[in-house]
């Protein structure tokens, strides 16, 4: 699941120079996180109307990043054609896809943070560093690329105080990695020298 958070309302308002706005939400990740489902879209509509904007309509696409036919979206949402701009309440993937079709100004209402998941009804953030070279099994299923603030692959930096990362309130990923590997009886993985990531695997430009 793509983790996103809503931008500050005033920041959104500053983006919107246009008068006639159509709002698009997303029925997948953003809905689950309560950042861009129907409830949030309706709330946004109300606040923007209060701020003097003309909301030409709204919809929540089943998945903003996966659109089969923009013509279908247009025919089901005639308000889009009467709009000066779209406000999209989805992750960057959704905004990007919609921007490719829309032919008019598209603004994001959300900031995209990380690739996470849902575990026992709880949204968990920063689960995958999207490095394009997954070695998570070597770390007991805890991705050091994203869970460690410094993406260290060979052990902790020594900056944690009482188990807390030097950066913020998160717990040191390396304590978790150690615990998981111990549980799996795979502590020998920690002894391996892990080579730096090959960032060629992350970028889309492939060597020919």
């Amino acid at each position, binding site marked *: 699941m793509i983790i996103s958070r809503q931008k500050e309302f005033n920041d959104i308002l500053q983006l919107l120079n246009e008068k006639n706005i159509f709002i698009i939400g997303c029925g997948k990740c953003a809905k689950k996180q309560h950042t861009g489902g129907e409830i949030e879209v309706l709330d946004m509509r109300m606040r923007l109307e209060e701020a003097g904007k003309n909301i030409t309509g709204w919809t929540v696409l089943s998945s903003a990043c996966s659109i089969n036919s923009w013509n279908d979206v247009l025919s089901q949402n005639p308000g889009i054609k009467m709009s000066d701009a779209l406000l999209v309440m989805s992750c960057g993937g959704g905004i990007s896809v919609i921007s490719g079709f829309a032919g008019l100004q598209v603004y994001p209402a959300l900031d995209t943070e990380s690739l996470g998941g849902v575990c026992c009804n709880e949204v968990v953030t920063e689960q995958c560093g999207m490095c394009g070279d997954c070695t998570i099994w070597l770390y007991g299923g805890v991705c050091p690329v994203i869970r460690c603030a*410094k993406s260290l692959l060979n052990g902790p930096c*020594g900056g944690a105080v009482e188990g807390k990362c030097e950066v913020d309130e998160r717990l040191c990923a390396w304590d978790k990695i150690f615990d998981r590997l111990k549980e799996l009886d795979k502590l020998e993985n920690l002894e391996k*020298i892990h080579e730096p990531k090959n960032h060629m695997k992350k970028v889309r430009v492939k060597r020919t």
Partner: protein
Amino acid sequence: MITAEISPSKGTDTSQMLKDAVLLKDIVDAVNVTDNQRAVMRMSPLAACTILQEKGLETIMHVTCRDRNRLSLQSELIGACSLGIRNVLVMSGDHPTKGDHEGAKPVYDLDSVQLLGMIQKLNKGIDFSGNRLEGGTDFCTGAVTNTELNEVALIKLRKKIKMGAIFFQTQAVFDVKGFSGFMEKINEIGSKKIRIIAGIIPLRSERSAHFLNKVPGIRVPDDMIEHIKKAKEPQVQGMKIAAEIIKELRTMCDGVHIMPLGNHENTRTLLEMAGIL
């Protein structure tokens, strides 16, 4: 071995750095030159080391993984070696959010273990990608460690040794007994080749003790804080404590590293009190 820490200047005025250099020149074996320590932007340690070496000091250049990718690290290291810098101290580096450029992109393309490995390659005359260099480097390479090591930290320390660290500089030591436990762990590793240089910070006040207690890897014992609190001249008491620690540590490890809070005006006196000078 006695080493001391010098911060590159925050700007082009190098006068404070040079004042410290004059104070330290004849009393230490080498000076450590920090690399944007605590993620606060300063002059590059390569430039500062060059300036200090021109004044006749042996330098140990800090290299963090925070600000440069593998290309930049290698070119900086090759440049350093070409300018006569022979010692490097490798570390991850404090995260940008801890410093004065909080929004900077944290690089960490390599971690400290991988950086040590890359330096080994440069010393063999090849770069990270395996290309032959027109002249390799010749670095004596060290790393850093906390003295309180849990299992996972100890494993990382072993990896640093495996990847070519031949000396370790520790975080500031206040608890000598704790340090002896650390040395036992080092000796258990059974590597005779590595040298341990213990960090020393003379306390200046009760406040400085509380401040240091918030620094990762540093623990100032309560009774020591009490002594500082009761002392008429806390700074002098701090020096006495540091001198005693140095005396005890010298029998246990290979050297000490002086990192005062502020400048080096008292470092000579401290070393005299510790019976070194």
